[in-house]
């Protein structure tokens, strides 16, 4: 049984790996805790003196046991944090040089995709907009200006492990690099009213030539 849907972006595998790292840390903790849980239940009928049961003093020994447990988890936590920090920085805090820039605007209940016109610059008069169908080239760094018009939406590309809420009143720029051709999904992950479940788009990841063709088509229709 596969745990994740197919992946198509450079960060997808890193995120999947992080999941397994955390699951590993949690797994070890689970085994220890499970033992502490089950062992007293198995041995509950054993004859014990009152003194053995009566552990009213929280002695140094007990404290050390408790601290050891907490310390082990702290180590696990720090391991997770170290692993995740660099990924987070690359994904959210740094913007590599873009090869191509687009804008995505969430509206009730569709995605408006604004492509830069033939001049290659966004927010000029020759910008072209399309609804719901996003064509992107493979293996290129793409910047996306994410906006919303009316209520909060969330751009969620499940196969790219990409998600970003879009809010009216601010533009959020994120980058993405896709490494697999095909047709993928764009979904809205933040409730946005009546048509929330109909708010679906398609992400077409295409090779350079195919992508040029489809861009020509988009420009052509508008021209």
């Amino acid at each position, binding site marked *: 049984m596969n745990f994740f849907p197919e992946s198509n972006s450079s960060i997808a595998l890193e995120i999947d790996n*992080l999941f397994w790292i955390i699951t590993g840390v949690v797994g070890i903790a*689970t085994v220890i805790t499970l033992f502490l849980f089950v062992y007293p239940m198995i041995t509950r009928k054993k004859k014990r003196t009152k003194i053995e049961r009566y552990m009213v003093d929280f002695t140094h020994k007990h404290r050390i046991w408790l601290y050891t447990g907490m310390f082990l988890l702290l180590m696990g936590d720090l391991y997770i944090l170290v692993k995740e920090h660099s990924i987070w920085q690359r994904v959210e805090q740094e913007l590599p040089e873009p090869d191509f820039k687009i804008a995505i605007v969430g509206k009730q209940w569709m995605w408006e995709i604004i492509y830069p016109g033939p001049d290659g610059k966004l927010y000029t008069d020759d910008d072209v907009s399309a609804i719901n169908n996003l064509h992107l080239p493979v293996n290129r760094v793409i910047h996306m200006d994410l906006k919303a018009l009316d209520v909060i939406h969330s751009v969620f590309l499940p196969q790219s492990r990409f998600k970003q809420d879009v*809010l009216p009143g601010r533009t959020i720029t994120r980058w993405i690099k896709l490494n697999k051709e095909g047709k993928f999904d764009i979904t809205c992950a933040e409730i946005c009213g*009546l048509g*929330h479940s109909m708010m679906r788009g398609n992400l077409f990841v295409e090779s350079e030539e195919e992508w040029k063709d489809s861009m020509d088509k988009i420009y052509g229709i508008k021209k």
Partner: protein
Amino acid sequence: MTEHKKTGFLKRFFFSLDHKDIGFQYLLTAMFMAAFGGFFVYVFRYNLAFGPDDIPLYGNLAAKEYNQLVTNHGAIMIFWVGMPMVLAVLGNFLIPIMIGTDDMAFPLLNKISYWTFLLSCIVLLSGFLMPTGAFGGGWTMYPPLSVSDFGYNNPNTTFKANFFTGNTFFLMAVALEFISMLMGGINFIVTTLNKRAKGLSLMKLPIVVWMINIASLLFMFSVGPLIAGTFMLLMDILVGTGFFDAYRGGDPILWQHLFWFFGHPEVYVLLLPSLGVVGEIFSTFSRKPFFGYKMVIFLVLIAGILSLVVWAHHQFVSGIDPGAANIFSLLTIIISIPFAGMVLAYLGTLWRGDIKFTVPMMFALGMLASFTFFGGFTGLHLGSNVFDIYAHDTYFVIAHFHYTLFPSVILGGFAAIYYWYPKFSGRKLNKTLGKIHFWGTFIFFNSIFIPLFWLGLQGQHRRIFDYSNWDKLLMQPNHIMARQIATVSLIFLIITQFIFLFNFFKSLYKGKVAEKNPWKSNTLEWQASSPPGHGNFALYPAVYRWPYDYNHPDRDTDFLPQNEK
């Protein structure tokens, strides 16, 4: 003790100032609201598994109704079931009697708090009668949607048109509920600090009283900004101010911050009293002193303070500053440490214990197990900001927070009910039915949410009426089957609860009469008669020891009540 006067139903359930009666009223109201919440979840889960047509007991479901049901299920289960169940019921019933006093510090305030709560229930449910229908924008009420379904071009302009909407009623209900719980919380804190029995120092308090008080304090500190925010949002809807309107300088993200600044401590508000109950039950049924009492209180205080500064992990992808997200991720993951210490201390109580598998003990074990293994540990996944990019707003989150809230509210609540039922009714619940109820609840609860973890990892996002749009991603046979397993389990879970209801109400009148101290427990409430009359104690007890002296080596009996020298 004072004579237990026969009082009329109306007098007892509407005007009585006695803390036990008020606790019982909260309990009944919470059960009543839980019926709504349970019915809602049944309807929309049925839709997700078997389609929107011809849902038994409901009919056809529309997308708008789906949103309304999802929203109200969330709000009801947290604010109108969870809050009263673990805070108001336990606090009202337990605090005065466990600290050996006659009643709350302010009985009238207590009653007003209940009335406000009842009013908030009525306001919430009357939202369904509004011309536009109930509110359907998610229980988190994120602004542009909660101000109007149409964002900035809101067609409703008049005050009246905006007032009679589900949005307004929902918000008013939430605000009233907060105020009610705030009044209750003040009462709990003052009662505990001020009315303790002679000799009962803070370090001799039962752990559950500590937990309820810390929870009340946390609630009080965190809810203030949200009450302010609720006023602001209400004015946005009604008057047309622009506090959260991006086109008028407002910021929708501010609401999210105000909401989650409350929303995260709220989880601990629900969790801590329940952990307190589990602590009491563990100690009693392991016949062992509570392990690391001071340590646990210290850790809870640390966790409480930390919980005030981790809220933004609900917003990693909602457009907050990515640099700040690093800090919030760090704090969130660090908060697992005090909880790990607490769980280990709790397991230390079980260690070498003479464990007795009574029904409350089973619920307590079930609570701690499901909370730790699934709720707590998946918290690490979601606390990590990178994985949260993917998991946010998917069913992984849903499964995670149900694994924290369901054990806290439902399993912990049942543990408390089974444990203290002999005290507040004077009769015993049927043990066999109780065990069936436990296994049914526990197994079906797990089989609902484990498939949802998997669905979440598959990318199934929340609050979607119909997944058929994502035929490749989410409509494979495996996905459909997982959704159906969850739904069928849910139906069985709901059916199991009828066993409990039958047991609960039948035993009120026909159950075996319980002795004064059926579990041989140490805390003060077991020294009062069952059920305690008005005023609780014939003679106010003086306290000589802490409440967990089980199996004391110097004594013949294996328990030693707090008021014995």
